[in-house]
């Protein structure tokens, strides 16, 4: 069930556009922020609010890499491995995450603390390698730095 707040927020978003479906992506963000992911029930509810067929809602939400369709850990690590980050050492960072936390791409740690997603370019090529943890940018990563940074996320 979407919270009253979420429904209200979607209603406000709806006013920014001249048609209902345009508010679909922002509405999905509202739900994902609240629940951490987009369950089939949540997709159905968003579709009902915006009067968009549920097959369309699912088709749209699964098109975009940043919408999540299963539960994730408390903190989401989005590590860039595209060319600029690759040549500056993102592979060794992937190894550290595996050794230290048992984290594989698209996986979650056993204690539910971290999930890992390997990203395409996140626009931090000048300070590569880089990652987003939740919505925080961290760049100029080294094996030591990434471990220190992650210690702050409990």
């Amino acid at each position: 069930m979407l919270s009253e707040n979420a429904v209200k927020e979607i209603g406000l978003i709806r006013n920014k556009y001249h048609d209902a479906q345009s508010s679909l992506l922002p509405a999905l963000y509202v739900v994902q922020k609240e629940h951490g992911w987009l369950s089939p029930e949540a997709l159905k509810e968003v579709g009902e609010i915006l009067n968009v067929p549920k097959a369309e809602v699912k088709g749209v939400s699964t098109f975009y890499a940043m919408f999540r369709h299963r539960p994730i850990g408390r903190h989401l690590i989005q590590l860039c491995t595209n060319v600029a980050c690759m040549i500056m050492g993102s592979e060794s960072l992937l190894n550290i995450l595996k050794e230290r936390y048992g984290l594989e791409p698209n996986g979650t740690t056993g204690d539910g603390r971290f999930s890992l997603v390997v990203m395409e370019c996140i626009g931090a090529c000048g300070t590569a390698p880089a990652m987003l943890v939740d919505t925080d940018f961290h760049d100029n990563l080294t094996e030591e730095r990434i471990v220190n940074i992650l210690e702050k996320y409990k």
Partner: protein
Amino acid sequence: MEKFLLRNIENPNSTDINEYIKAGGYKALLKAVEMKPADIVSEVRKSGLRGRGGAGFPTGMKWAFASADPKKPRYMLCNADEGEPGTFKDRPILEKNPHLLIEGMIISGYALEAEYGYIYIRGEYPAAKDILDAAIKQAHEKGYLGDNVSGKGVRFHLYVHQGAGAYICGEETALIESLEGKRGQPRIKPPFPVNEGFLSKPTIINNVETLANIPYIIEIGADAYAEIGSPDCPGPKLYSVSGHVKRPGVYELPMGITLREIIYDHCGGIRGDKKLKAVIPGGISTPILPADAIDCPMDFVNMPKHGSMLGSGAVMVFDETVDLVKVCYRAIKFFEHESCGKCTPCREGVGWMRAILERISGGSGTAEDIDLLIEVSNNITGKTFCPLGDGAAMVVQNFVKNFRSEFEEKIH
């Protein structure tokens, strides 16, 4: 060169509207609303400004097409979906100078008689989204946005719309689909967005950096603006430099500066004083150049004469230690991930190229693989709705053309 696009960004409070106004901000808007909309369009046309998103299409011409279509309402969109690997030039504007973009959008909206604007920002820039939202709120409070812009009875409402991780949405018709709440799959053109775009209405889409140039053109006039940079391709340009240079980052320099000057004069040369091996000059899709080809003027007109393209001005520098076959493989893996799946040559062909490159890179390639790779790429070029497939094919063709021996060395 005096900075305009990155003016004031060293100020720790640069996102605050009062600081922006103190540094001369919103003066161009006040000047613009005293002009006729058509005169602003001609001024932009006269300036010679070309779109900074990658294609380099003349902005004034795009605007004139939109103005000529009587359908209303019109929409003004900003493409802030900078997803081309290597590109981070728009980020300083979005995060440090948001009012410059907002001012550019209000002037553009007024010039094109569009009352609604949307900034489509990539999901990977969550901080920039919050900064823009806060800046828009401030602009409303100061009366620069809303139903009576600067007391002149002009209407302009501006919203931020967040993408969700799809490179293809940087393509303008895919961006429109995405803004309409659909899968970001490109439309066939024509009709062009200037006639039938967002919600089938005339829609002008410009890149962040393009829009950020508009206040400058109004401020100094088209004639003075046209004096900056290259004759056929004027203005300041943001170059985002990454890879093995001593000082990577975003640089505001004139159009037409050479790649060598960017790398050696501004970025301090190659790290650890190693040898330069190759440069991708304009984002991952643009043709890779060997080290001896960097005396080329970086603008939309001259780069094609030197075997590459300006693209987004994202300079990626590779030193002698880099395995270029691996870089090529990683680049194509990216395109495979980002292909929207609509056109068969791109959807299937790019995956096929990735598989061949994976083989070669992993040491199990065969003698026929390099030619097969080129054959597959030739069957993608020109056979798709949008340039994504072309981009992937171009990457493969130019890596092989310029560095064939590296591929051959991997095949035993």
